[in-house]
């Protein structure tokens, strides 16, 4: 038996048929056109059709109300809900999923929401600290909250500034789940996550 040889794009490393959803579709397109006209025709002619289909779907989604079935997503991330056609439930951290309906919602009620920001900071290579900002707005006792986190995540945690708690270790996933659970007044939409790259 002989193995299949799949041709991978030299630009984005994916099989050619996935270039259009890769990180550099335009470069891939230009490169393949220069390399092999026939292949270019084969792969990029039907991409337009696919893209069109996807756009249509997106429009449908935007039109439909944001009624993602609140089905208990069992083990998976509690973070984001699926769009109406039903596909999501992100793996653990829902960091960078652009979701149209949500964004619009956020803009509208930005003033009303008291933002809680979770920041993941890289100290050296594999060591992280997680900081939580904005809990005081909810009238939460910071000292107590810090102790609570320390107990829950089995790590060091301290108040270090006005309205700032620093937790040792990477507790982002756990916090995302734990915050709304422990303090029901904080809605999941109010929690922001950002990651700081190592300075070194």
């Amino acid at each position, binding site marked *: 038996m*002989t193995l299949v040889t799949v041709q991978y794009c030299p630009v984005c490393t994916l099989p050619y048929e*996935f270039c259009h959803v890769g990180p550099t579709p335009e470069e891939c397109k230009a490169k393949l056109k220069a390399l092999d006209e026939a292949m270019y025709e084969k792969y990029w002619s039907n991409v337009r059709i696919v893209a069109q289909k996807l756009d249509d779907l997106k429009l449908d989604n935007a039109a439909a109300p944001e009624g993602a079935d609140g089905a208990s997503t069992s*083990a998976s991330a509690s973070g984001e809900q699926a769009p109406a056609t039903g*596909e999501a*439930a992100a793996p653990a951290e829902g960091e960078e999923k652009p979701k149209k309906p949500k964004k619009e919602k956020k803009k509208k009620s930005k003033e009303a929401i008291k933002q809680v920001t979770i920041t993941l900071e890289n100290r050296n290579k594999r060591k992280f600290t997680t900081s939580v900002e904005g809990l005081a707005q909810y009238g939460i006792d910071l000292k107590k909250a810090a102790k609570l986190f320390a107990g829950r995540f089995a790590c060091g945690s301290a108040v270090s500034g006005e309205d700032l708690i620093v937790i040792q270790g990477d507790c982002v996933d756990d916090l995302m789940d734990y915050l709304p659970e422990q303090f029901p007044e904080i809605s999941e939409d109010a929690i922001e996550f950002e990651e700081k790259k190592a300075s070194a």
Partner: protein
Amino acid sequence: MLTHFPFRFPWLLGRFNYKEEVANAQQVKSSVHRAIRQKAVEQFPGLEPYLDEVMPKKDPIHLLKLRDSHLQLIVVNKEVLFFHDRDGPYMPTLRLVHKCPSMITHQTVDIGAFPFVMRGVNVMAPGLTSKGGKLTPAPVNTVVAVMGEGKEHAMAIGIMKMSSDQIKSVNKGIAIESVHFLNDGLWAYKNVDV
């Protein structure tokens, strides 16, 4: 509650650096070499005709243990072929599945699910049962390749969280847990130095 997965796969998240994450790399002795080949074929009978090509008897197998987890990568000729957790099932990498597609069960998702799967999101049941999708009969916990409607090559590897019958009857919730997808950290890890 803390939501612990049975496994955690660091490459699904953007940040992953193998130089730091690989705790140790070892060439396995011949008895383990035999056992790995055997387990691979037991789990993927379709791999058998290709076995001597992808895992030749004479070529050394290296096991890379990852830090802070019980994940192991099985490397032959500088390429990751399988990964697994403790004694869990072997999960093939996409590059291996591309080479011998017939080794594994395929599940096809519709075009609406496609962009989500490409970001490593778990496959929900409707993505398989709608008219663009195709559901192959398989029991729960089967390791499967996720294909896209109209695409030729696999774009993700996952574990069935429900049997195909359940998926059909319940038709909601997570059907396949994504463990590896195109262009994730594991895909980017090629030409492994051991």
